[in-house]
């Protein structure tokens, strides 16, 4: 009751302050082979798009015209037209694509191929494969430095973050982190890369110049055994002050003070929370909760979960239209 009242108040305020700006979120449902489209004004699923098998990594092209979704079991990345909300094309990604990153111009796409220990480089305009980079066993997490010069790939069984020079496409450094690194995220000022380790249960903070682990975020939740804390997705606010870390089967998002690297709060969300995305105005953070088949909406400023939206089965990744 209290919660309903609060939600009502919040949306009411938003309406009063400025015309509400609705965004559109796309959620990949790993088991349903669908993408759910969520309207952030009404917080409802407005469409469910059928895609290929095992959709996971998902992102918009820089121009906002297409949503790219990696459909691992079909060995490709499908392109959804954001206007018609239908699959219109696919990219030559290499076998079993999972996560990908694109350069600032939106011209080059780098794809982690879990099955053959490579990162595939794709020309997005020509939709052609430019080459492969050999990395460690089971490449997964992918991110590009804000200046576009360094690509970071994490490999899950090798337990490393590989630093790749995007111009030469060569590995320049390998940094050992804790077990099963899943995701990497740069601070917006480029001073740190945060790498989550699912089985290690930590987030390693890497100095991208010295290529060294300079700190670690650890998690402790009373009443929860250590093994259940499995960090995966990371989201950082644009001012680099607050990071949100999805803790998988711990069913919580950790709110981390970036400066002190300490957890300030744990937010209870749905079950097995994996990935997340901010609305462009950074008012809300949406998380995908795989086992409870829903998306939690977090009010970023209040650091509170305000809503839950049912989507398809095993929601995995999420992207919000720019």
């Amino acid at each position, binding site marked *: 009751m209290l919660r309903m009242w609060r939600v009502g108040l919040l949306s009411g305020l938003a309406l009063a302050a400025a015309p509400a700006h609705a965004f559109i979120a796309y959620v990949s449902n790993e088991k349903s082979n669908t993408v759910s489209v969520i309207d952030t004004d009404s917080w409802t699923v407005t469409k469910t798009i059928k895609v290929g098998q095992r959709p996971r990594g998902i992102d918009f092209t820089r121009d906002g015209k297409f949503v790219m979704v990696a459909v691992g079991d079909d060995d490709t990345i499908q392109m959804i037209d954001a206007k018609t909300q239908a699959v219109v094309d696919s990219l030559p990604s290499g076998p079993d694509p999972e996560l990908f990153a694109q350069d600032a111009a939106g011209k080059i796409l780098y794809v982690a191929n879990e099955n053959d220990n490579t990162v595939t480089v794709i020309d997005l305009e020509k939709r052609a494969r430019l080459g492969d980079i050999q990395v460690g066993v089971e490449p997964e997490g992918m991110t590009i430095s804000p200046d576009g010069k360094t690509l970071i790939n994490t490999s899950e069984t090798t337990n490393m973050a590989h630093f790749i020079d995007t111009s030469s496409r*060569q590995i320049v450094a390998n940094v050992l982190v804790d*077990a099963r690194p899943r995701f990497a995220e740069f601070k917006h000022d480029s001073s740190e890369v945060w790498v989550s380790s699912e089985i290690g249960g930590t987030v390693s903070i890497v100095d991208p110049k010295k290529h060294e682990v300079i700190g670690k975020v650890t998690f402790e939740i009373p009443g929860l055994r250590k093994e259940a804390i499995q960090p995966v997705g990371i989201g950082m606010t644009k001012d680099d002050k607050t990071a949100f870390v999805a803790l998988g089967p711990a069913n919580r998002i950790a709110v981390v003070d970036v400066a002190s690297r300490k957890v300030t709060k744990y937010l209870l969300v749905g079950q097995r929370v994996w990935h997340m995305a901010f609305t462009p105005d950074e008012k809300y953070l949406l998380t995908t909760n795989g086992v409870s088949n829903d998306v939690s909406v977090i009010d970023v400023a209040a650091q509170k979960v305000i809503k839950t939206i049912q989507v398809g089965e095993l929601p995995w990744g999420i992207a919000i239209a720019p």
Partner: protein
Amino acid sequence: MIRWLAGLIGFGLAATSAFAAEPALIGVGYLGVAGTRSTLSLVEQPAENDGVAGARLAIEDNNTTGKFLGQRFTLEERRIKEGEDPVQAAMALADKNGFIIADLPADALLKVSDALRDRGTLLFNAGAIDERLREADCRANVIHTAPTRAMLADALGQYLVWKKWSRWLLVVGSHDEDKLFADALRRTAARFGAKIVQEKTFEDKGGARRTDSGVTLIQRQMPVFTQGAPAYDVLVAADESEVFGAYLPYRTWDPRPVAGSAGLVPRSWDAAQDQWGAIQMQNRFMKLNARRMTALDMQAWTAARIIGEATSRTSSGDVKKVTDFIKGPDFSVAAFKGTRLTLRDWNWQLRQPILLVDGRMVVSVSPQEGFLHQVSELDTLGYDRPESKCKLK
């Protein structure tokens, strides 16, 4: 190759504490027994390379990582024939390899571990599930990646109790290992509050596992054998010797499910396991070995990965250093089971979730919800620290 070199040089430049240009060689030996055992089901017949195929994949995985760290792993395989001395074979392997993965019967493993003690070789028991190797006969130089009979029995028992199938009809084979598994199942029943309503022994009277018209005979024998049992929920079979277990499902007098050595079986791994990123591993295994991955393959893979994990964390191939790290408080390894795996420091048994499989699917994974423990829920499987008789030496 050129790309590999470039990566290597790049790394040397970036990290000032560079390694020598020559990669450090880390030798891993694999010691097994020649020949394969016969199973009732033709589809479960183990391949000649059962076990070592898993070690081979882990060595490949370690080498992919090793190229970034200047480490190179090799695998040397030895199979002993009947009557051959395991100690001699182990000593020969230990000349070139600081680590040996063994798939040996308990007695042979004990002889080998005692013979290698003063050489500092670290031994991994990937095959033997005998309790005594972790209890009265435990050894400080052996890490056990194979689960124990008690761990397997507890994993199954937790599920049966969760399912409220708490009245068990226990059918035991006439061989020693069948009796040991039955002991473990009785202990499980007592721990988790199940009741064994009756025990039956299935005598092995010899005979072939492959016959031309066996199915007709089995269909007549099994209902009669299970006739007249008191009311029960599930038939639990202890038949490690593969004499009768697989004949029971669908043929019991009363329509009841079968578990244990047939039906719902507890295992460290299964070809159907696809959760927690395991599909990548299953694909890699299939690509390398052109067959599906068994529990023994996984136990050997885990052993070789433990070595690789420790060599990369210590950036060393020194056996003493690596062994100390493996036995240290910070050690854990990821093995596609949804949780980190650690070692029980009182007997060097690997803690691990156990899969319950039916031959086609993973039905469940134990420990089951609600079986709690103050240290690790994985310690609800098998003998716990306070019960252990192990004194490491």
